[in-house]
């Protein structure tokens, strides 16, 4: 554990809109230099959380410190140290990319050179283009450029790749990684699992205003005592799935039996639980999914402190399910 103060410290954060409780007491902390992912379905409370941290909304309760300051005070000093990429935000349509960026640079005490920012977000070719002529993806890159030009220590990215094509997503991911390499702290929200898995050092899964689980993607995916899924199709064409903490001996047993019967285990696979499974399990998003997903054992909820889920019940019985 680093002794440096956290970049973001959130304790018992609450927020209501009328009778709707958007945040029901969430706590997490983001260390300096890490990429923290707030992962959850639409309406989970992700944007409300970041907008409180950005100083756009007042909290209902709890305490919040961003770079050691209360964002509700909206001090200029704090705003100069933070870069914000909002979900959808217009920009001056009649100005060129370069004009907008250099204007923004002038609003900050220690801006980065505009040419450098254009390079980082890949808009050098478009520097003299009016912003209204940019494509959707290019506009998102300009959004990022505007958030970077003040050379912030902390960057908020609210659903940075929603609506991107796969190639553009990869590019955006590379940009986020390069920002981390520069030592920036990044808080990103996403409803894409692969994005959280690919980018985040720490992930908090949020739903209905509560944090359901928290930890590194590896920890959330299982960590100590992770349960493997062994599946195959048996002689009758049925798909069989087993959960186990000890795949080695289970495989030995299964293959031994099969060989003894002179059968083959078709489509045999051994998979580690992914962040995706944990996510689907916790958020209930799999409800409309396959039956096999429904059959997965209950996963442990995060503790109040928000640590990684500890696996219990190591001897849970294996299940056999039939595919419809």
């Amino acid at each position, binding site marked *: 554990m680093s002794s440096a103060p956290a970049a973001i410290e959130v304790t018992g954060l609450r927020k209501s809109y009328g009778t709707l409780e958007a945040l029901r007491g969430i706590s997490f902390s983001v260390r300096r230099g890490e990429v923290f992912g707030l992962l959850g379905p639409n309406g989970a409370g992700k944007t409300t959380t970041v907008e409180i941290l*950005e*100083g*756009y909304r007042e909290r209902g309760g709890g305490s919040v410190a961003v770079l050691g300051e209360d964002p509700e005070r909206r001090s*200029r*000093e704090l*705003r*100069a140290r*933070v870069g*914000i990429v*909002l*979900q*959808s*935000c*217009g*920009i*001056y349509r*009649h*100005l060129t990319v370069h*004009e907008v960026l250099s*204007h*923004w640079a*002038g*609003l*900050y*005490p220690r801006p980065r050179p505009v040419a450098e920012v254009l390079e980082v977000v890949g808009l050098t070719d478009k520097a003299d283009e009016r912003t209204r002529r940019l494509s959707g993806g290019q506009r998102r890159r300009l959004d990022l450029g*505007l958030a970077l030009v*003040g050379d912030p220590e902390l960057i908020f990215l609210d659903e940075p790749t929603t609506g991107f094509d796969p190639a553009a997503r990869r590019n955006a991911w590379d940009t986020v990684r390069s920002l981390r390499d520069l030592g920036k702290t990044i808080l990103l929200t996403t409803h894409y699992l692969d994005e959280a898995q690919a980018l985040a050092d720490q992930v908090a899964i949020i739903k209905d205003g509560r944090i359901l689980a928290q930890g590194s993607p590896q920890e959330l995916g299982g960590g100590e005592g992770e349960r493997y899924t062994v599946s195959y199709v048996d002689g009758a064409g049925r798909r069989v799935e087993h959960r186990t903490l000890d795949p080695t001996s289970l495989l030995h047993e299964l293959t031994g039996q099969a060989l003894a019967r002179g059968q083959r285990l078709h489509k045999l696979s051994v998979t580690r639980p992914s962040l995706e499974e944990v996510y689907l399990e916790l958020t209930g998003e799999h409800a409309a999914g396959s039956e096999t997903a429904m059959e997965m054992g209950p996963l442990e909820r995060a503790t109040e402190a928000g640590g990684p889920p500890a696996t219990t019940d190591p001897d849970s019985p294996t299940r056999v399910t039939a595919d419809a």
Partner: protein
Amino acid sequence: MPDALALGWRQYRLERRMFWRNPAAAFFNFLLPLSLLALLGAVASGHQRDLNIIVPGIAGMSVMTTTFIALAHNMTALREDGVLKRIRGTPLPTGAYLGALAANAVTNAAVQVSIVVVAGKLFFGLSWPKDWLELIVFVAAGVVCFASLGVALSHAIPNSESAPVIVNAVFLPVILISGVFFDPKHAPGFLRDIAQALPLKHVIDGLSAAMVTGRGLGDHLSALAVIGLWSVAGIVLAVRGFSWEGHRS
């Protein structure tokens, strides 16, 4: 850190540049009143009594277009497009930003009224304004009044698409009954009463006195009072309803 004034000045220069790059803004703020002046002036050419009404009328209308219309449109668009929200996330102080927006509108009003005054002298048989102070006082009062009312109206406009409809639904009847194009003495009594209660007629009366009749400020204190009341209402509504975020987000 650059101070608020320098940042406001920077923002003001950007607003000026954007104004000239936006054809719609340039049209509504400059070409429309000036072409109306040219057109009506040509029609009334030779009839000095009509010209004496039209020139100050267009000057008053210019104050309203450059502030009321421009700000009602712009504040709606900036809010709904998310520009206001984005600006709010930067270190640009709120006062510097809003000050720059206001200064942009004031610049347009000043330039426009100056053009009308010069055109009145050169083409439409008016002398130079007889009371410069009165001219400045009424332009300033009109700017404050219509700017705040424009911002206040923007709060009631749900999106950019409906802005022109709502703004013109207010603007067109007001200029028609307030004596921009004709002497309101000939209008029906109830329309005159409505016009008396609205600020534009009083701005035009003041401008007319400054530019044509030479009747001093002292004769127009009640006009200033009406403009002042509307200003107070406009400022209260503009501040209370202000939102940095659009309805869509």
